[in-house]
């Protein structure tokens, strides 16, 4: 299975939301990283064929996804960024309703709903109205509906927003386990989520893929540009004004700064092992990110 994105572009008037984006995705987990307004949601909506591109196209195994219509939607699972639900429905009813819309036979739908409620730790609240749920619980219902049809292409827009740390870990594990021979694309601006599960990460800025690669490859790109420097507390602010500081840690009366910089910021700075966060900050800068 192969999902290819060919010079995908979306203009809103004079504003370019997505600018000639191309990529070929095989089975695996793909993370889409970018600041707010980078074009992630627009791109994901075009991947789902619910937003018409200004130019370019998306193909699944060589077939245009728009032309495929229901055949594409049959293998697609999507969690929108602003996940809408019916407040008066219970979690089980809502999932059954979406299952019917996805054309899943009643009996199979019943089993799948039960299974997903269990997987997402929603069994205890299955018969409670969604409007009474916390943000994290609603988000889990949204993830469950995306997984209902066991999709070959799973697109999740900000799936971890609203989830507490425990839920985020559970979701990461679930997605890693689910991926297998499927294509999973998730967008987020929480770097650690992508770092934990994505096989390939696309960093997006101003509608374009700025850089992409595995977590290790991206981290490697900033090797030699990540430094640790210990300074007196009163000087910390001055360093923050002049450099991109990835981390700020107190050690007694002194502060340990993790600085992203092409040049060695100070004689006292020591190079350190880069992580994806460093790469993200390197491309966006602390303020933009």
């Amino acid at each position: 299975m192969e999902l290819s994105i060919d010079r995908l572009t979306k203009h809103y008037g004079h504003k370019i939301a997505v600018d000639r984006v191309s990529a070929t995705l095989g089975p695996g987990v793909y993370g889409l990283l970018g600041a707010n307004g980078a074009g992630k949601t627009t791109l994901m909506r075009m991947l789902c064929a619910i937003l018409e591109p200004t130019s370019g196209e998306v193909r699944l195994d060589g077939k245009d996804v728009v032309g495929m219509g229901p055949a594409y939607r049959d293998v697609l699972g999507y969690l929108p960024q602003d996940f809408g639900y019916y407040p008066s429905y219970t979690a089980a009813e809502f999932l059954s309703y979406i299952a019917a819309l996805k054309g899943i036979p009643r009996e199979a739908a019943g089993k799948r709903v039960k299974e997903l409620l269990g997987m997402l730790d929603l069994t205890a609240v299955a018969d409670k109205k969604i409007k009474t749920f916390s943000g994290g619980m609603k988000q889990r219902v949204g993830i469950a509906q995306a997984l209902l049809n066991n999709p070959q292409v799973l697109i999740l827009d900000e799936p971890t927003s609203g989830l507490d740390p425990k839920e985020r870990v559970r979701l990461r594990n679930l997605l890693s386990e689910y991926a297998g021979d499927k294509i999973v694309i998730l967008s987020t601006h929480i770097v650690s989520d992508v770092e934990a599960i994505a096989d390939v990460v696309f960093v997006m800025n101003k509608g374009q893929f700025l850089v992409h690669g595995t977590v290790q490859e991206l981290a490697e790109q900033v090797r030699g540009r990540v430094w640790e420097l210990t300074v007196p507390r009163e000087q910390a602010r001055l360093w923050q004004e002049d450099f991109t500081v990835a981390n700020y840690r107190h050690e007694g009366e002194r502060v340990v700064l993790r600085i992203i910089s092409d040049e060695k910021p100070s004689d006292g700075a020591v190079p350190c092992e880069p992580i994806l966060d460093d790469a993200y900050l390197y491309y966006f800068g602390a303020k933009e990110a």
Partner: protein
Amino acid sequence: MELFALEHKRLWRTTRVWLCVVLCFFYCVIYTGVISYQWTYFGSEGDDPTNLYSNHFDGYSMIRTYMARADTYGDYWTDETLQNLVKDFQTMIPHTSLSSMYDWTVGLNALDLYEELEDPGGQQYQPLIHYVDTEDLTDFYTRRQDYLEHNLKVNQQNLLLTDEDVEMLREMDSHVKTPWRYEWTRGWEKTLTSTLPMLSRMAPYLAIVLGFLFSGEWHDSTAPLLHTTKYGWKKLARVKVLSGLAFAVEFYVLIAGGTVLLQLIYLGTNGWDMPIQLIKLLAVAPWNMLQAEIYELAFAFLGVIGYAGLVMLMSALVKNNVLSLVLSLAFIYVPDLFARYIPMWAQDAMQFIPMVGYPTDIFRMNIFHIFGKGVWLPWMSITIPVLIGVICLPFAIRSWARRERV
């Protein structure tokens, strides 16, 4: 089918829908039904004639009293019947209430034939029935025929009646077994002129429920989700339209059923075969009370279906719940606002908008003027509104399905 069942269930699940159904039921069945029958409409003997709400809460027993009294006048109407009726009324005046006086409608109507007996000095500020000498009430059938001929002539000259109508009215006695009899018509009069037309009050409630059917998906932000399901927008649109229609039918059955049930409890079925001309002499519909009731129920039902179609189209055309509601309500209230400023033909045409026309038009003479000819077209009045609604349905589906991208 399963999707339809789920969508239909979803429609009924919202608080807004239940609130609308309960409020409408309360207004149409409880307020204009039970309270009207039991309290305000059929007055008690000896209550305060100046205050309708001073009646005792005894409508059910009063209706039985009126019915029993009517039975005492026999089956066949003669001069003596009218004389006895008026005599009884004059005897009862000191004890009767303003409200229960309306029970003598038939007698009051009959006295229209004796205009020359009115108080010549103009000193009596009361209807003729209060003071007429009953011995003068003779030649009822001759006077009635003269009166009928005079009115037929006037209405025919004004193009309000066709030749067929005139013939039917002139010979109407021959259409029934007993040409003229005293019947207690007030119950049927209430049913046909005020209770059943009340069903048109369902319109705003329908608009509140169905106006959100499509636009509500934008409000709930479910559009992106629904778009990416296999069946997607188009099939959902069809299912929504079907569930909207199913709701309209159920809503109608609930309200109309409640209304008819009350009618059966309070009025029974007596007099179902009376001609509607007992309520209005020159009504041209060749129907009895039951036929007229069936017509009014059908009129309201088809109006509900027609209006449901219009509302669903508005809901599919816009993305905003409030705008959808305003547009839907505009169909029923804007024509009323402008009716007096537009030509007659346009006023007539507006009667075809679902739930704008009134079923009591059967008691009018001829309401439509086509190429200078006055014609009474009951079938047009009930079929065009529903056709408008039915025509709206594919457009609703189409306009909704066209928004396949968000």
